[in-house]
């Protein structure tokens, strides 16, 4: 047969193989018309291929399903996956609902006394409605904490402080608070209703810009009100045009002491180092989260910034992204007022400059002093403030300032980004969102950038960041669900919507709302698939699609991990889903790599795709006891490593890839040890375990070669994991001394981590587990006393964890299972007394906790019961052994 003819046959054969049933018959019939010889060949070969399939000819069989699957990308046949997607249905979002901006929140029927009329506005910490109070026959402004914010006790506490602080103030320049209440768990307070605009209206709208004397007068009055509050130890901390209302008589009324810090009672809440405020009007010391540096002068800065905005028609600072804005606030000189308001009085300019000094001591000593200077200007007297030579001094000072250095450290920057955004949401959701103007676009970018930055691990484990993170995520959730709710005509583009869906999914997943996250990711996937169909070579799109698949895969994975038994039907389904999503992700990543080969980032992601699929397949292989699949997983992992190796060699120093590389070795070690557990040959198993140790060692070596700058908490935790895995395998191979030293090194790391972040539950758990590992190791060597010492550490560590956070069920469960196992082992070796002691010593602190707060620690009852049951069991064993001493 000439090779040309074969090429023709081959093509027809491949096509026929990709078809089924009638479609295939039709296709071959059409071939018949062309050439009967060709059709006959194809028929014969199809038959041959079917028999070959049955007989497993050549072992590895490329199944027809697989063929279909891969044809999709190149040819998109009619039944490809893209077409099976139903045409985009108009979204009926089921995700957590945000506060409707145009309707009445039904939960507000909470107080019969108030009748809600309309929504006035909403901010980070609450929503304000206009309401009618029946008992006193007056209109009021009713502010409530949205339910979604009620989940954290901290939010409630902050709300109460706000209400308390505001209620204490009685000044004509401050909107009075009438009543603070709570009904059915909904916290609210009523305030005087002020009819009129807030000052932001005069900043944004060019035509209604205030005349400079008028602006000075208003700010003078605000200064007096602020001075009044300062005299009562209340700092506003969130002064900005939005929070200054102008009533119908033109008098400014200050509102929203939402962030007010009650100077005398600031313990607790400020411990988290939260930064609050709107960055464009925020003083540098506030921007860097330096709680101790906050003072009256922090408000003076914001007063100056507000005056500046009234005169210039814009805030002194404002960049494309939040981080940039903060950077400006800390480092830059604001543009000269004359740039925006050529006729501005030099005195007002000087007053602004004086307020906007970076260093608090260079500003006015008090709001009262500022008011006095404004008065001098208004009355035509020379002002007290001297021109500063255009901020130069402060700028130079700033360059040497430690704050700048602080800002540049990742942690602080993240912290700022996260918290600043929270307060910005007020602004976004109110107006910018629906307008979809450039401003909103910039904010959207900023939020996304910072969310990604903040959500990817760094924030999670930083000291004291837990509450900040929660607040932040709640706000992000609100933002993205609002974005997803926009009507189609408001949508900037399908791609943006897909992005928003993706981000929404990500926030929901981070908050643990798996069903909603799943739904969001799926709509993102659908949208992206549709878009990818239109432009199949768009690497950016494909990359996003791959990312969505990966996220869907890891959702399935985490759901699987949270199942009590993985072998259930639901478990199998999730496992399949996990593998499938990651296989899709890999396929797309490969395609991206074809489109734009040798790009560092896509190489990195490609390697990760290989690794993730390998992990999924490894899990499936182990769960189905299919050694071939685990072996396949090992190969995928090797491929990931190879790509990383190549990339690392090309780039001199790429910490991120190096970290992946170390992680790859770790996973490889895991896979090898799993292979070892599956193999029936002891020798092979032994060798695999030895290799596994070598892999773990490689992971350790690579992780330790990371540059110092790349070693964050997560990297340290990873390193401790590597040591622990190595130790586990060494233990398995009876290399007891090695195992002991590896466990110790792992422990050293987590102990340090946990000491620095006692609230991070994750570290604590890992620490307790390692204690338990060591306890096991010593028991194995019959060092009972030493073993019990470690059991004790393990117990104390977990009990402390439960005490700190009663919601962590896992600590209780682990505690019981560890102690139970040890007690049983002791009982088996007839050390009944010792066994009972262990149980008692665990039960006692748990009972103490329950006594201390029965409601909070109610779940512990179960743990205590099961331990008591174990104790009974052991006692009866003890009786038996006494009864038959001969045994």
């Amino acid at each position, binding site marked *: *047969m000439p*090779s040309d003819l*074969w*090429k023709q046959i*081959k093509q027809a*054969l*491949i096509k026929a*193989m990709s078809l089924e049933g009638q479609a295939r018959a039709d296709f071959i019939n059409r071939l018949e018309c062309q050439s009967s010889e060709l059709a006959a060949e194809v028929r*014969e*070969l*199809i038959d*041959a*291929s079917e*028999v*070959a399939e049955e*007989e*497993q*000819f*050549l*072992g*590895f*069989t*490329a199944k*027809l399903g*697989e*063929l279909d699957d*891969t*044809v999709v*990308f*190149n040819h998109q046949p009619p039944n490809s996956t893209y077409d099976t997607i139903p045409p985009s249905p108009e979204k009926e979002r089921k995700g957590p609902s945000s506060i409707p901006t145009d309707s009445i929140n039904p939960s507000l029927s909470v107080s019969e006394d108030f009748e809600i009329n309309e929504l006035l506005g909403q901010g980070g910490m609450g929503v304000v409605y206009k309401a009618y109070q029946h008992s006193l026959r007056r209109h009021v402004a009713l502010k409530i904490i949205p339910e979604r914010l009620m989940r954290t006790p901290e939010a409630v506490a902050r709300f109460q402080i706000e209400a308390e602080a505001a209620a204490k103030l009685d000044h004509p320049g401050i909107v009075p608070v009438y009543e603070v209440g709570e009904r059915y768990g909904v916290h609210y307070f009523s305030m005087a209703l002020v009819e009129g605009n807030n000052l932001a209206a005069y900043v944004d709208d060019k035509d209604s810009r205030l005349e400079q004397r008028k602006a000075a007068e208003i700010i003078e009055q605000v200064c007096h009100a602020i001075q009044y509050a300062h005299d009562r130890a209340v700092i506003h901390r969130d002064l900005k045009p939005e929070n200054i209302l102008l009533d119908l008589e033109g008098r400014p009324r200050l509102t929203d002491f939402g962030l007010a810090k009650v100077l005398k009672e600031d313990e607790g809440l400020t411990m988290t180092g939260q930064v609050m405020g709107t960055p464009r009007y925020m003083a540098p010391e506030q921007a860097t989260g330096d709680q101790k540096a906050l003072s009256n002068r922090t408000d003076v800065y914001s007063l100056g910034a507000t005056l500046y905005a009234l005169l210039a028609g814009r805030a002194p600072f404002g960049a494309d992204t939040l981080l940039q804005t903060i950077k400006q606030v800390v480092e830059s000189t604001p543009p000269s007022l004359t740039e925006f308001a050529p006729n501005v009085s030099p005195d007002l300019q000087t007053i602004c400059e004086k307020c906007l000094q970076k260093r608090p001591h260079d500003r006015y000593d008090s709001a009262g002093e500022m008011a006095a200077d404004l008065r001098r200007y208004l009355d035509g007297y020379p002002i007290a403030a001297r021109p500063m030579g255009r901020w130069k001094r402060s700028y130079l000072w700033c360059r040497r300032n430690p704050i700048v250095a602080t800002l540049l450290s990742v942690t602080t920057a993240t912290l700022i980004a996260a918290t600043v955004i929270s307060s910005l949401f007020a602004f976004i959701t109110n107006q910018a969102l629906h307008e979809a103007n450039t401003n909103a676009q910039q904010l959207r970018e900023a939020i996304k950038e910072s969310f990604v930055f903040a959500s990817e691990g760094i924030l999670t484990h930083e000291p004291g960041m837990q509450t900040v993170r929660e607040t932040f995520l709640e706000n992000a959730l609100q933002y993205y669900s609002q974005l997803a709710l926009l009507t189609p005509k408001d949508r900037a583009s399908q791609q943006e919507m897909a992005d928003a869906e993706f981000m929404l999914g990500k926030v929901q997943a981070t908050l643990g709302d798996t069903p909603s996250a799943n739904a969001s990711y799926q709509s993102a996937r659908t949208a992206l698939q549709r878009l990818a169909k239109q432009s199949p070579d768009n690497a950016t799109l494909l990359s996003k699609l791959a990312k969505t698949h990966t996220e869907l895969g890891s959702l399935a994975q985490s759901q699987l991990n949270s199942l009590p038994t993985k072998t259930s039907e639901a478990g199998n389904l999730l496992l399949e889903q996990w593998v499938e999503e990651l296989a899709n992700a890999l*396929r797309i990543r*490969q395609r991206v790599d*074809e489109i734009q080969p040798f790009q560092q980032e896509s190489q990195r992601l490609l390697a990760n795709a290989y690794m993730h699929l390998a992990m999924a397949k490894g899990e499936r292989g182990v769960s189905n006891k299919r050694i071939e699949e685990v*072996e*396949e997983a090992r*190969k*995928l992992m*090797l*491929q990931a490593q*190879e790509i990383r*190796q*190549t990339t690392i*060699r090309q780039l001199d120093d790429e910490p991120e890839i190096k970290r992946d590389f170390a992680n790859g070795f770790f996973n490889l070690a895991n896979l090898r040890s799993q292979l070892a557990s599956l193999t029936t*040959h002891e*020798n*092979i198993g032994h060798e695999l375990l030895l290799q596994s140790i070598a892999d773990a060692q490689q992971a350790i070596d690579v992780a330790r070669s990371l540059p110092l700058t790349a070693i964050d908490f997560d990297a340290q935790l990873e390193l401790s994991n590597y040591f622990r895995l190595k130790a586990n395998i060494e233990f398995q191979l009876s290399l007891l001394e090695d195992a002991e030293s590896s466990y110790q090194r792992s422990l050293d790391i987590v102990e340090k981590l946990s000491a620095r972040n006692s609230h991070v539950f994750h570290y604590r758990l890992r620490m307790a587990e390692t204690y338990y590992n060591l306890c096991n190791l010593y028991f194995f060597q019959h060092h009972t006393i030493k073993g019990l010492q470690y059991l004790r550490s393990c117990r104390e560590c977990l009990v402390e964890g439960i005490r700190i956070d009663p919601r962590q069920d896992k600590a209780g469960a682990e505690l019981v299972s560890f102690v139970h196992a040890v007690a049983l082992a002791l009982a088996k070796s007839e050390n009944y007394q010792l066994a009972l002691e262990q149980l008692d010593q665990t039960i006692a602190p748990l009972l103490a906790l329950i006594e201390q707060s029965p409601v909070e620690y109610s779940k512990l009852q179960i743990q205590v019961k099961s331990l008591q049951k174990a104790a009974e069991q052991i006692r009866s064993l003890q009786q038996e052994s006494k009864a038959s001493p001969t045994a």
Partner: protein
Amino acid sequence: MENEVCCVLLSGYATPMAIVPPDVTVLLQQANHGNSHADSQLFKIVQQQLHRMAEKKLAHESPGTTIQATILVDDAFLQLMGAEHSVEINDRNHFYKLAARAMRRILIDRARGRNALKRGGPQGKRADVELDRMSDKSYETDILELHHALKRLAELDNRQAEIVELRHFGGYSVEETARLLGVSTSTIKQDFAAAKAWLFRELRRG
């Protein structure tokens, strides 16, 4: 070239030569750049190494044991090249292709050796290692027949024959094969499926 190495194996494992010549990586480089002498030298080394390792692994096992060819190849690579990963990716690909060829050769030689034994070889010789079981599931297939059919396929479509060699004898996955040959995975799957149909028909025709 195939003829040159045909009979190396039979004497090869009886008197193993130095396993790790220091210049293996150099050889690999040269081979990949078209030096056919280097290629055949390297081929011998790889083949011996594979055989030696297979024998060692199977030495204590029962006759039915199978080994995954790729594990063998991966380990051979590590042992020959050292773990320092200083091998260029292209050279590395070349090695893996070469290893698949070597595995094929090993299996063929084993089959021939066994046939010779059946025809009355030296008495009492241990039926060595069941190396031809390494290509796992398909040991029912007559290796020699397959080898010849594969040669005929190579005349029709060289790439297809190469794919079969890599997938079947090298034990590489679709993805690995795709990387080695620098084509897409879908091409590999399609070509392999078509080649399988063709080969199966050839073998059945006898």
